[in-house]
């Protein structure tokens, strides 16, 4: 029940006094309530849970996480355990 799914906001509008949006889930369009993400913009990504946007996703943070974890794996492979320890301590925030 807590599984939110990322979707792209393709249209914002009002319905029955509520902020609503059309959300694209990789080709499937569904409606979601945007009252908890009132500043969302068309083109942004939101986590949708039970027809409700819980938050806007940060593309920047997503790419940063992927980059760090990819680097970590490469270092473990290429340089051996000691180097990965250095990455491990560098990337803690």
């Amino acid at each position, binding site marked *: 029940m807590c*599984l939110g799914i990322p979707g792209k906001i393709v249209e914002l509008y009002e319905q029955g006094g509520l902020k609503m949006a059309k959300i694209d889930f990789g080709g499937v369009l569904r409606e979601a309530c945007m009252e908890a993400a009132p500043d969302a913009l068309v083109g942004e990504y939101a986590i949708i849970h039970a027809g409700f946007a819980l938050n806007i996703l940060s593309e920047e943070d997503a790419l940063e996480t*992927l980059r760090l974890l990819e680097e970590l794996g490469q270092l473990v492979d290429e340089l051996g355990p000691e180097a990965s320890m250095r990455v491990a301590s560098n990337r803690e925030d």
Partner: protein
Amino acid sequence: MDVQSFSSAFRDNDIIQGVLKEIRRTVTQPWVIMEICGGQTHAIMHYGLDQLLPPEIELVHGPGCPVCVTPLELIDKALVIAARPDVIFCSYGDMLRVPGSQRDLFSVRAAGGDVRVVYSALDAVKLAQQNPDKQVVFFAIGFETTAPPNAMSVLQAQSLGLKNYSVLVSQVCVPPAMHAILGSPANRVQGFLLAGHVCTVMGYQEYPPLAEQYSVPMAVTGFEPLDLVQGILQVVRMLEKGEVEVQNAYQRAVTAGGNKAAQAIIFKTFQQVDRNWRGIGTIPQSGWGLRPELVEFDAEKRFSVEDIHTAESPLCIAGEILQGLKKPHQCPAFGLQCTPTSPLGAPMVSAEGACSAYYRYARVESN
């Protein structure tokens, strides 16, 4: 980045294997880590992550399964209300097969009750608008994640002036349940994966006091396989170094303070109350109930259902499973008297229940 990449990039086999190697390299001794959220339990089994981790790491499964912890008495009340001829009873789909004392919502529907599965609580409000001659009741269950949409439905019904919409509320919160687990003398949990979307809504500022009180490190963790191994790596690193912190391993979706607009919707609708958790018992101040000014939307008040005599299956050990004290395959009824099509307890039904995950992904041996 396109919309599918938000999921698929976090399922990248090479990156996951790299993180797994780092986990294997980091771990030096046995650790017990609990994932709170049942959605994560299913994702771990689905991707076989439990089998890819080093044997030192034992994952135990937490109580984060909304239909599993909804109290039997409330389910029995729901069954009585749903059977009324003047009622359209709406619920999220998971709830329909959850056993009450005698029957479930499916059998109420089979006997002629108007029981409907809705995608969103706001769909139930629409049904109330479309059916002014019927009472529409929504089963508002769930954790902090489900609270904003459930709350919004009540606020929307109020603003539309609807007199035929009400909610049967069983909203529960994660931190009090963690208190109960960690405070138990039988507790084995040494580190936590915090439920990502609960923290999307509420943030994670509630957790550092808990982490300190019980000396248990925690990482806010998402639902994709890469999110899960990242959360596990961060917890294992803290455990190995003897650090006790609450770290965020789901940064794209979670900020420390959470979503303030969502919290405002919740607290406009709900206030903190004691809640009874099925299989666990009453935990003080562990959930939310409707605020006094919204009492007219309370289905328990609108339909006074008395004479509920609950009867749990004597075989089911759901309570011990929900607290991480036992694994599903240790239950003598698992896969025999209790299966997803004929469940004795809610964890065998739900897409978030640990028993259902063990049955579906055939985890029948200790690992």
